[in-house]
């Protein structure tokens, strides 16, 4: 009788201990900035929270040593979605506004990634359709890609009017 009563109490006690950290985490967790692009990550959020370091570590060796350039687990690609480029109004002003660092600081994790890796994407990322080597000079003149687009639209329109381009 006494034993069965004790046994009845075990699940209740377990539930209490399990829920305690979850309750504490609700209000006091790190303020992690929302991603600036995309609706969902390359894996479910719970999986990414637990295993992102494994994915990154696996990918870095494949990318550097073998030349496998997939984007799914690339650190550069993390930043493309999670951190705004320099000069952008959403760009992080200090480490607490940086997606990776906000959480690492909270968790007390010291990582070396950003001693070498860029902390922000560049506006002129190479996959951008506007950025080709020959356009660099024009881009420097135009300053911003929006103006650049307008310039192109204008020049194209004027050429079409004069019949230079068929």
């Amino acid at each position, binding site marked *: 009788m006494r034993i069965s009563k004790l046994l009845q109490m075990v699940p209740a006690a377990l539930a209490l201990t399990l829920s305690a950290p979850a309750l504490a985490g609700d209000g006091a967790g790190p303020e992690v900035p929302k991603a600036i692009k995309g609706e969902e990550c390359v894996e479910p959020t719970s999986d990414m929270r637990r295993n992102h370091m494994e994915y990154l570590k696996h990918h*870095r*060796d*494949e990318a*550097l*040593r*073998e*030349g*496998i*350039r*997939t*984007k799914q687990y690339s650190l*550069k690609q993390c*930043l493309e979605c999670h951190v705004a480029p320099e000069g952008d109004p959403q760009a992080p002003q200090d480490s607490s506004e940086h997606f990776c660092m906000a959480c690492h600081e909270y968790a007390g994790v010291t990582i070396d990634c950003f*001693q*070498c*890796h*860029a902390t*922000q*994407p*560049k506006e002129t*990322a*190479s996959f951008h*359709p*506007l950025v*080709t*080597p*020959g*356009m660099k000079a*024009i881009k420097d003149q135009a300053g911003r890609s929006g103006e650049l*687009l307008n310039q*192109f*639209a204008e020049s*194209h*329109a004027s050429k079409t009017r004069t019949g230079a381009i068929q």
Partner: protein
Amino acid sequence: MSEDTNLKRREFIGNGAKLAAGLTIAPGVVVYGLSEASVPDRPAEEPASSERRWGMLVDSNKCATGCDKCVTACGEENGWDDSEPNSSPEQKAQWIRKVELRHKGTGKSHSLPMMCQHCENPPCVDVCPTNASMKRADGIVLVDRHRCIGCRYCMMACPYKARSFIHETLTDQEPHMPRGKGTVESCTMCVHRVDEGREPACVEECPEQAILFGDLNDPDSAIAQALTRYDSTAVREDLGLNPGVRYRGI
């Protein structure tokens, strides 16, 4: 495009890719990239293969004395041009440098760019205690900074003095080229561009087109054809390292 009725298949595909790379702003208005669209030689999920061996042929006859466009292009592309403000010129990173050669007897002088020669048998890889110094399957010699402990043994081993050590804490690295204090680095043959199907920055920026880049293993490539047609030399051929970078006219 229209005047050449004998378009080769490769050129035709290239033109198609150029069209595909065009950007539509508004209906009927399309902007095309100014330079040739780059087509990677393999899908992203495929590793580099030893069927290729990337190499360069530098024509020292074309290379102009006093011109250092390749050096500045490399520095800007990879972010080492002004990254260490507190270091002396001897300490600063130098992935590529211009060298003047003068024949003592005749007085004839040559100019040429000198960088990592991407050896087939690289001494830097032999001596590395952590396997950080490595040769990729397609012949590009790299430093895996995840493993580099900064011992600089490879710098001692390299007969071309091609490697540099970073002495200062760096910020604002290029996203495609991570660099950091306490590691060794050298010319990567712009591996990030090569994997995208583009040419290295020095090749692209040379105003004299003195550097030819391509696959040494492909007999149809421009570089392989040039190598069969012209005399070329490897620097310190006596060491038997079989560099991927060869020179004409020295």
